[in-house]
């Protein structure tokens, strides 16, 4: 926002759509924010049930696409903590996704030597038990990777993390006695709940194909719940000493250190939290697909996750969710389509060239909107609300008035707008 003034009238602060939405949101009372939030989430949850004709995918099941979006959204939120908030370029994020998925796979797949489902885990709730374990294992892996590498900066960190992503995939590919190598691990456990005659293996089973309440829909709902939980946690961190430390490190690491920020400690926390969220998403993936192979965790996926974050707007946790939606949904939208608005197209070819299109899209974005589609203006103060509401109201009130009365209005209304 520019603070430049002309001599005739104060320039109205330029408000984009995002600014207007924020202004409107901040002006809502707390209860109203909750209502709007709950209604919004419910509407999103209804998507796979309503399957709006404009949005619904043709070539593949819409519920499944949304379930995949849910996982990518989690990945984007986790990667956003590392890249967007703390400014640590992590090119091997797919490694954490893989570790989460493989932890669940190794514990619950019959083809794994460490399969515990015959032993102390019941197959019915094995997935649920493996979920926190997967998160814990990825958190530890984040710690192991972060402790030596977070002393590096910028490009060097990016290269080391890139290597990490590849190492995880190559291990999965080559430790064939444990991970099944290229054949992968199959029959991974999933939550067996709400069994019925039409759904003999429960609602989360891949065998549940009864549209609209198929397995994809239920996995999407499960991931939606997890997204909300993760958003609350990440939001609380953002509006605390931790979030401020991350942004300070991103802006100027040396200055942050000299201002008393324990930079290494908070960088490690960012890595650990990002890794855990990636592991959570991986565990969801393993449960939904019930099958993991190393090729799913190619480094190109890391780039796709990063693409979601950059596209959505680094540092904006809601923006990156929309970025994840674009990354997952757009290729699937074209898949199987032979015409769009009456124009004949080869949808499958377009979907296959998605990396090309995302690459071009990123380049265009970097030229015209380098901050991403939904740039961040996160609130870094828990009790900053009153201050910001006040400031924004004063700003809009001033924008609508002439220059002469502008100064008077701010001081004439002490606390009146509250």
């Amino acid at each position: 926002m520019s603070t430049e003034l002309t001599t005739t009238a104060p320039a109205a602060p330029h408000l984009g759509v995002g600014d207007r939405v924020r202004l409107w949101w901040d002006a809502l009372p707390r209860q109203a924010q909750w209502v709007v939030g709950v209604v919004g989430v419910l509407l999103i949850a209804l998507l796979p049930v309503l399957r709006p004709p404009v949005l619904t995918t043709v070539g593949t099941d819409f519920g499944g696409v949304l379930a995949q979006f849910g996982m990518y959204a989690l990945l984007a939120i986790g990667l956003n903590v590392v890249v967007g908030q703390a400014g640590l370029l992590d090119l091997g994020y797919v490694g954490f996704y893989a570790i989460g998925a493989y932890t669940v796979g190794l514990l619950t797949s019959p083809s794994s030597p460490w399969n515990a489902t015959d032993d102390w885990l019941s197959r019915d709730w094995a997935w649920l038990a493996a979920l926190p374990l997967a998160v814990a294992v990825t958190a530890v892996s984040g710690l192991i990777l972060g402790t030596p590498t977070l002393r590096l900066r910028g490009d060097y960190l990016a290269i080391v993390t890139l290597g990490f992503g590849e190492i995880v995939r190559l291990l999965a590919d080559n430790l064939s006695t444990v991970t099944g190598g290229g054949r992968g691990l199959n029959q991974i456990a999933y939550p067996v709940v709400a069994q019925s005659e039409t759904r003999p293996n429960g609602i989360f089973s891949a065998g549940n194909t009864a549209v609209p309440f198929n397995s994809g829909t239920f996995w999407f709902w499960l991931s939606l719940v997890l997204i909300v939980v993760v958003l609350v946690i990440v939001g609380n961190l953002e509006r605390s000493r931790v979030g401020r430390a991350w942004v300070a490190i991103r802006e100027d690491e040396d200055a942050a250190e000299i201002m008393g920020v324990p930079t290494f400690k908070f960088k490690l926390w960012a890595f650990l939290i990002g890794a855990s969220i990636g592991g959570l998403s991986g565990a969801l993936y393993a449960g939904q697909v019930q099958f993991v192979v190393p090729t799913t965790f190619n480094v190109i996926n890391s780039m796709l996750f990063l693409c979601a974050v950059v596209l959505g707007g680094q540092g904006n946790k809601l923006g990156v969710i929309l970025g994840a939606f674009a990354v997952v949904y757009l290729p699937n939208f074209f898949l199987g389509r032979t015409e769009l608005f009456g124009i004949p197209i080869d949808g499958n070819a377009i979907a296959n060239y998605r990396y090309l299109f995302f690459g071009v899209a990123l380049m265009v974005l970097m030229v015209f909107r380098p901050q991403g589609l939904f740039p961040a203006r996160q609130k870094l103060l828990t009790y900053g609300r009153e201050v910001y509401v006040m400031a924004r109201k004063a700003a809009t009130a001033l924008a609508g008035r002439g220059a002469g009365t502008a100064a008077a209005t701010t001081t004439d209304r002490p606390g009146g707008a509250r």
Partner: protein
Amino acid sequence: MTQPGGMAAGSEHGDEHLGDPGRANRQTPEQYLPDGGVEPPAAFDVADVHPELADEAVVAEIVAPDRDIRAEVGEPLLQMQGVTMRFGGLTALDAVTFDIRRGEILGLIGPNGAGKTTCFNAMTGVYRPTEGQVVFDGKPLGKIKRNEITRLGIARTFQNIRLFSDMTALENVVVGTDARHRTSVPGAVFRSKRHRAEERDALDRAMALLEFVGVGKRATQQARNLPYGDQRRLEIARALATEPKLLCLDEPAAGFNPAEKVELMELIRKIRDDGYTVLLIEHDMRLVMGVTDRVVVLEFGRKIADGLPRDVSADPAVIAAYLGVPDDATA
């Protein structure tokens, strides 16, 4: 010895402020506005949000809660003990020894390249001395981490402004207050009682500090959008927020016009009167002579003078260092 005179001068200025509350605060932003007195769109009156901050005495109280720690005034707070800094073949500091005493404003001056900023960096832990040591508050700084040095009580500003430009002015200062906070990830996730108390306290203190340095009205503007002078003041507020015992200012008046320099001098005195010890690196001789209690002069990494501003400015070695030695004097 230098202390009583300096303190008296300082309190006179303090009284001036009490007589005319908020004068300095209101004056500053207006200077940057072409048509005088019109606030920029995003500016607002802090008093609307925190009515109690309209009272300067309250501000001063929040800024320096333990302002009567004058007990040990005059005792050495920081000691440079034979500090030598070598970068390869270059000796930037050569066995520099001096003390900074509690409650004084010490000026560190010298021609360009004399080693002033190196000296600063050695004190704040950016560099580790090649030889000698820095003792702060009776504790050798040795291998203490930079963020812990800040927590011990040394805060600094930067010669080239290094604010967190994406954050608002208020958030910048709150980062400074965080140096004293203990909440970590668990406390923040579960919004513990301590976390909430710390956040409240941080916000109040940060607002008060912004008022104190005179950028309160720009609290919610992004640091990058602040006028140059306000950015320099904001850096001081951020450093003060870490509750330092020693505040190191690296050329705070760089790029200021004479009127702004006068205001800055008043601000520095006000800071000292609140119980802080100040180390000032500055090129502007009028500012140094006007505000400091004692001056240390460096040239080519060596200390060449140490004493009252008056005496130092008459010292032939200092004059030679600044103006060069006349040809006939060497003959």
